[in-house]
């Protein structure tokens, strides 16, 4: 009797969760199918649940909407020497649809932020967990407090700072604050606690220097943590719309999310075009997420284990 009641409860719960799962995937389904529906289907009073006809007109419109050079390489710190404080471009790519450029910008931004975060956080997290040094407690407290504060409150001073550094309106103004965000250090610190002290000790006795110890012994041990942090940073930077919105002004430096948001301002009811843009923004990041899902889940749960 008891077992059957449990089973009934379980069965009903699973059914309800399946319904919710359907509702949660529906917007994504609507984005992708909407991107391929003809105008008449989109602006019809009876929605088409499955596109009766697949068209690519919206993608064509998106591609011809704006043009931009495919890439622009700057001379490092060139803005400090140029007369107007703008970056000096030394290599400009061929002209291409702006949406492609936005995608390239976004990938560049997310990958760079990811690499920088992983390297700096791996080093700092290890030192914080395994080294006894003056100011350790103070630093750790500062990091935890900074993490609890809303990121957005620092954005206004950040805009001013970036324009003082001639970085405003460049992709670096989005990358650097993402690297500075201390979550990564915290995550790796939690992960490095598990490194046995004896291993580090024996490495020291064998005469391995600090850097050698870090590269050959510590890094292989914290690799899963770094992997989790990498995918976490990648997805978060990709989707950090607010930061991109206030830092990036010219359409050549926009990211794909920002580009779509701006398109929405111009073509607020051209849902086909907007869905095509949303598809371009969402598909790459969802693919990355599904491939690295395991690491990602680990990163989330590790961050929650508070010391």
């Amino acid at each position, binding site marked *: 009797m008891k077992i059957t009641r449990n089973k009934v409860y*379980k069965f009903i719960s699973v059914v309800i969760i399946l319904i919710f799962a359907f509702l949660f995937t529906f917007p994504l389904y609507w984005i992708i199918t909407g991107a391929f529906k003809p105008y008449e289907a989109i602006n019809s009073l009876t929605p088409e649940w499955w596109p009766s006809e697949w068209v690519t007109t919206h993608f064509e419109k998106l591609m011809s909407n704006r043009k931009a050079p495919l890439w622009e390489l700057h001379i490092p710190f060139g803005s400090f020497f140029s007369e107007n404080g703008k970056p000096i471009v030394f290599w400009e790519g061929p002209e291409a649809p702006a949406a492609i450029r936005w995608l390239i910008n976004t990938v560049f931004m997310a990958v760079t932020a990811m690499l920088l975060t992983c390297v*700096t956080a791996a080093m700092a997290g290890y030192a914080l967990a395994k080294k006894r040094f003056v100011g350790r407690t103070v630093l750790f407290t500062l990091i935890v407090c900074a993490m609890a504060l809303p990121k957005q409150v620092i954005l206004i001073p950040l805009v001013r700072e970036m324009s003082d550094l001639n970085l405003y309106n460049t992709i670096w103004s989005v990358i650097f604050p993402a690297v500075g965000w201390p979550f990564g250090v915290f995550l790796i610190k939690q992960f490095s606690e598990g490194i046995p002290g004896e291993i580090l000790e024996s490495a020291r006795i064998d005469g391995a220097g600090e850097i050698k110890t870090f590269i050959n012994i510590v890094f292989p041990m914290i690799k899963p943590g770094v992997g989790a942090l990498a995918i976490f940073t990648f997805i978060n930077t990709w989707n950090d719309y607010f930061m991109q919105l206030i830092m990036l002004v010219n359409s050549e430096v926009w990211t794909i999310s920002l580009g779509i948001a701006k398109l929405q301002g111009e073509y607020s009811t051209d849902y086909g075009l907007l869905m095509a843009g949303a598809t371009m923004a969402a598909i790459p990041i969802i693919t990355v997420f599904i491939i690295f899902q395991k690491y990602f889940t680990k990163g989330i749960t590790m961050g929650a284990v508070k010391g």
Partner: protein
Amino acid sequence: MTNQVYTKRSRALVRRETTAAYLFLLPSLFFFVVFVIYPMIMCIYTSFFDSTMGREDIFIGFTNYVNLFQDEIFLGALKNTTIIVVVSVPAVCAFSLWVASVIYDMKGAACSAFRCIFYLPVVTGSVAVTVVWKWMYNNYYGILNYVGTKTGILDTNINWLGDSRFALWCIILILFTTSVGQPIVLYVSALGNVDNSLVEAAQVDGATRFQLFWKIKWPQIMPTTLYILVITTINSFQCFALIQLLTSGGPQHSTDTIMYYIYYMAFTLYKYGYANAMGVILAIIIAVLSAIQFKLAQSNT
């Protein structure tokens, strides 16, 4: 003599260790101090100034703060933000706990499939999600009105985002779908780590499913609940993209939130000092709430 040598050596060791530690910390500290700590200090500092574009800042003491609490739009935004937090935080926590409790003991593939699905709206990104919801909410072509009127739930089409009675709730609904992903992942892992010997002992003693949950599992997942409460609260306070892209705070300021108002003040009206004062208030509110949640959770366990 030997003692002296020893302390000298260990002091040298400490010094070496400290130097090494700071060298490892240096790159990370650089970014942390320059792009997080410095702007934080500047945020507090500028909040005491009348600060705008193209002229020197003027020191005005607490005037920004005094003005804030006489600013009706700010108070309205505070009210809306509170509604969002009070509604969405418990809803997110309860829903994600329920989903997690059902899926956590499923087979690996099924469990991760569900986790993935509930995480999808987060990964999709707020812009893409907002764009499609705007279409679904549309007065004429929106699927919500279509389904509503076809099934007889709605008499006529509703202008969801244009009606001050519904707009805020529409935002909360989207916020809900983009918030439950992380808590579910956390709860699934917390429930998986619950000490099984206690559960079995309770089952032998004849505990009901209900008792088993509240008496055995709930206390053990308390730290996770606390963490989820804190991050969900912070996320709900920071609700911005949805507002900016869907309603811009309208109609009649019915969906203004603090975060959106800060943005509006700073980047439309260029009142930096005033906006920073709001940022400071927001930070204080979040810090106090986190502390309260922490205390509550501690006294419960």
